[in-house]
């Protein structure tokens, strides 16, 4: 495979997603590189989940190309999906299955069956060794989140897609999750995540895209975005205590109106 292609693990070009007459994603394009954590930021309803759904193959898109690990999502859906791990915004597993059964199910369908010992180690690693017999529905929100992140990375995928992975976590769990996300980067793999936390975007994302009304309005490193927009009147107008933050830039670019 050519070196040029090797640099990015995900390439989205000219993506359009419609739900009936609603245009959810309008000509979105960006790349996620090897060893990069890429953040997708945007107000509610901006089109983040819809963009991820198109990458994941959950929805058919009208126009555009999506390449994952050198494979077109529309032409080779199984290959593309095999090289990505996914945590959905609202994920749920069969409530009747316990944690061990869920790990068996997903390691099996990703073609990396786990032995009993491997499952034990994995659960220990996420602090759930005592919860192995519990049903998924009996876990706390944060524990469920941990299980679903483990499943997103169960087959050591080249690309990990996380839709609001830290929403609802306590600070400790959030820090731990950041650590896990950074470990994926260390392996040279890529992460695409969405978040509403500017702090998270600044702390873990190498680059971010701000998306609004289905369009990408800025892509850069968090610091570069701050530097570039620190003199914009809209940004200065919403800043507090004289210091320009990523949140000021975000609100400056997307407006202060609350979304429907």
């Amino acid at each position, binding site marked *: *495979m050519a070196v040029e292609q*090797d640099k990015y693990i995900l390439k989205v070009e000219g993506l359009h997603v419609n739900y009936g007459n609603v245009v959810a994603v309008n000509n979105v394009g960006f790349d996620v590189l090897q060893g990069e954590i890429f953040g997708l930021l945007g107000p509610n309803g901006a089109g983040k989940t819809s963009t991820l759904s198109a990458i*994941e*193959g*959950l929805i058919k898109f009208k126009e555009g190309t999506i390449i994952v*690990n*050198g*494979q077109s999502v529309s032409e080779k859906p*199984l*290959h593309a*999906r*095999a*090289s*990505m791990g*996914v945590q*959905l915004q*609202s*994920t*749920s*597993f*069969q*409530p*009747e*299955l316990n944690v061990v*059964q869920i790990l*068996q*199910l*997903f390691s*099996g*369908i*990703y*073609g*990396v*069956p786990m032995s009993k010992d491997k499952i034990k180690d994995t659960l220990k690693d996420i602090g759930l060794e005592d919860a192995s017999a519990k049903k998924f529905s009996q876990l706390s929100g944060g524990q469920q989140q941990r299980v679903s992140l483990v499943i997103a990375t169960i*087959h050591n995928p*080249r690309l990990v897609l996380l839709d609001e992975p830290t929403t609802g976590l306590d600070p400790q769990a959030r820090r731990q999750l950041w650590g896990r996300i950074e470990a994926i980067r260390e392996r040279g793999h890529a992460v695409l995540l969405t978040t509403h936390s500017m702090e998270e975007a600044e702390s873990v994302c190498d680059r971010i895209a701000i998306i609004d009304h289905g369009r990408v309005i800025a892509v850069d490193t968090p610091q570069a975005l701050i530097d570039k927009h620190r003199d914009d009147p809209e940004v200065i107008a919403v800043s507090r205590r004289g210091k320009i933050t990523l949140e000021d830039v975000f609100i400056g670019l997307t407006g202060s109106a609350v979304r429907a």
Partner: protein
Amino acid sequence: MEETIIPKTSTVFATLFRADMATLISNRRSAIISLFVPLIVLFTWKGLIKHVGGPTVLATAIAIGLIAIGLMGYTLSVARDRDKGIFQRLRVAPVPTWVIMTSRICVQLVMIAVLTLVVFIVGYQYDGVLLAPLGYVITFFIAILGATVYLSLGQLIVGLIKGFETINAVTRITYIALMMVGMFSTFFENQQLKEVVRFSPYGCVKMMLAASMEPSKAWAHDANIAVLCSLGYIVVFAGIGIKNFQWSSK
């Protein structure tokens, strides 16, 4: 670059099937419902055997059980899992969607086997109905065909309706209606009504089952018509149900 692993379809199927079976087993309630009414028929209709014949009683029991399997077992579990986003989580894995559904249907096949076996055993032990060996074999296959009629009807429901609560209500009403028809149509007087019931999804399945229990004696023109009608129902219901099916209830 590392190789991407595309898991073997047979492995994926085996894994899904194991999980779906585990779900069925821990969800015993729907399985018990599927056996409950057939057992009531077998216990309460003992005295009727000399009037309508043993095969009719067994056929009624199986036919009613199959409705519960198709509607309660299959339809409600698909509707619930779609509503909870369980299918979406499976679909983002490298799994062809037909494998997901095939596993679901195979779990119901296991239930059908359990149902027919229970009816045969209780029918023999309690009601003293003994069939010829060939009758048992053919009845088993006809039960699968009959179940397919109700699985297709269930697919039609989940294909046309999105919301879980609506599906829940529609499914239960359909189940009770078909069950009532099943329990009481034997006693209907009105000839026209009898004809309608005979060629309804319920009547066809019962007719096929009753005939298959005595293949050498009772399998006649009517049974052939019932098979054709059943196939027709399957093609229409499943066709519409699959074509309109959406994986997410959003």
